[in-house]
């Protein structure tokens, strides 16, 4: 096992109950430690299914996944300690304050109280949320909730952070702050796996990315590599459209 690999996906297939078409079809991927890795694809391409499997939220139909050398099917508790998951939904409790939400998730990770208090304060400060520390989420804007959602997923400082559309539906300022924060985190050696529909963000943020379509890997590489490889394309969006086509998806 290559120690540089953070996530190793081998022949991964997922067919949902009641469906005949695989959502993920014999996917092979290696994501290296310290990478900022993008998973791109049109709707229904299999991005969310793939990261849901990596996040241990759903089980694969076939194939193997190793995370930091641990087998997903056998070493789940160890894997849960080293990954952080930021779901697309604001998966928090609206009637609790920012602090109460973060404190709850932090305690579930087993972080001791004094460390947790310090860490919450630091992260709230870093993401411009200090004044919302004791505000119930129900009274916060979408951008604030999304930033708290991000902190909740990384309160335990995971080695690998998995984010599903972390900047969807928020204003430019919040989006920029989150992107800067993620870049900084990545510089500190956190491996980031990221899905997005915003090609511009992926092009700027990701050190490497893969484009999926119909559950299969279509192309993989650094954004510049992919653009250079397709000489008729001037941006990642052009490459994306060239590889996945113009037809609308469900």
């Amino acid at each position: 096992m290559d120690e540089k690999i953070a996530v190793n996906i081998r022949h991964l297939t997922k067919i949902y109950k009641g469906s005949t078409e695989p959502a993920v079809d014999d996917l092979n991927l290696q994501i290296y430690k310290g990478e900022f890795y993008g998973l791109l694809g049109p709707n229904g391409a299999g991005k969310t299914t793939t990261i849901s499997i990596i996040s241990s939220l759903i089980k694969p139909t076939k194939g193997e996944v190793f995370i930091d050398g641990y087998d997903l099917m056998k070493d789940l508790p160890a894997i849960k300690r080293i990954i952080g998951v930021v779901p697309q939904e604001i998966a928090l409790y609206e009637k609790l304050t920012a602090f109460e939400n973060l404190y709850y998730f932090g305690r579930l990770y087993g972080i001791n109280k004094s460390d947790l208090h310090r860490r919450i304060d630091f992260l709230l400060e870093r993401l411009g949320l200090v004044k919302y520390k004791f505000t119930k989420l129900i009274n916060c804007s979408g951008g604030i909730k999304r930033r708290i959602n991000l902190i909740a997923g990384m309160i335990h400082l995971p080695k690998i952070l998995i984010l599903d559309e972390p900047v969807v539906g928020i204003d430019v300022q919040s989006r920029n702050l989150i992107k800067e924060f993620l870049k900084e985190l990545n510089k500190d050696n956190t491996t980031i796996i990221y899905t997005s529909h915003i090609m511009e963000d992926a092009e700027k943020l990701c050190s490497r990315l893969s484009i999926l379509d119909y559950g299969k890997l279509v192309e993989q590489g650094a954004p510049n590599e992919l653009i250079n490889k397709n000489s008729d394309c001037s941006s990642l969006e052009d490459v994306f459209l060239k590889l996945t086509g113009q037809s609308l998806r469900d």
Partner: protein
Amino acid sequence: MKKLFASVYKEGLLLLRDIEGVLVMFIMPLILLIVIALLQHKSFQNITEEKIQVIVVDFDRDELSRSLSEGMTNSHMFEITSVSGNDSTLLEQARKDVAGGTYQIGIFIPPNTTSVVKSRAVSLVQQQINSAIKTDLNNLNAQGQIDLFFDPITKESFRDLVKSTLMQFSASVEKRIIFEAYSKFIDALTNQSSELDYPTTPAIQFNESLVSEYTSGIVPNSVQHNVPAWILFGMFLICIPIAGNIIKERSEGSLARLKAIPVTYLQIMSGKLIVFVGICLIQALLMILVGIFIMPFLNLPKLQVGGNIVALFSISLASALAATGYGILIGSAATTQIQASAFGSVSTVIIAAIGGAWVPVMIMPAIMQKISAFSPMNWGIHGYYEVFLRNADTLEILPDLGKLIMFAVICVGASLLFRKYAKNV
């Protein structure tokens, strides 16, 4: 352990932030308890302690009428209202009152009824002791007459019961008069005064008890029945907010986030279990306090809780665990809030009906009594009955406790299986 505390902390905060919801959880079952106890009070009195309203029109005003009234009063079956005199309007009014339902029975004792009985007794004794004495045959064959008039809605069996009871009383009065006549006659013959009184208690007494597997012979009043019944109902109704809480967590994605955290589903559910069991116990305490302090103000009997507080706490805790476990199962199995609240409320009503919350099991048809044995509310109500009415200790209610705890374990176990195999959890 710290994960469990974190879950309890979060659930507690969520509940406190929905104080209106918590109040509804406490107040609605209390209102239900008071309303149903008031509604059922009369029915329970019919089963247990309601007396037959009787008006006695006493024109005799002598020993027989007095003894009859006393005997009937002492039997605890009758509530006697006596009117005496010799005005025929009294009789007319009494008839009207009975016809109007104020009294179920009217008894008219005509003038000189006691004299007729006494004369007949004396004649009988004289003839018996000394046939040479010329006895007035008219006296010997004389018969007094007591008129009975009944409310027309009374059943024939009821009328027969009352007639036989009255005949028993009048026969005992007649026996005493005969005994006294004998005593006087013997005293006259022997020239001595015997001071022997006719015994007031019968030679044979009947020891009566109700034989029922259900309540060990105890018939509760409306408060003794309704407090445990609605404690159980209120507890099981908590399945709706619990299920709602779980489904909300799932639909908003928090449960998915929790799935990616090194915490077990059992730890998460245990947090809910502890908090909602606490709510159920507070609810039970409030119901008991209402039974003790509020019910008497509403002219209802005061709740008697028995003396075994440990047993009372045990049955409350086991019932709360069963109810909360049931809520966790519904929350884990249902896919939408509508599904959970519809199933939760209807199933609670069914479990309550079968379990004897509305109609006590002891007066259910035999087949329903058998079905009732499968309802967790029945186990809980039975346990409370035993503690309240028989002063049972924890050991005596162990079968009920065991069934309730087993039910809770099965529910939580089934919800863990749903978590493992169902896609929606």
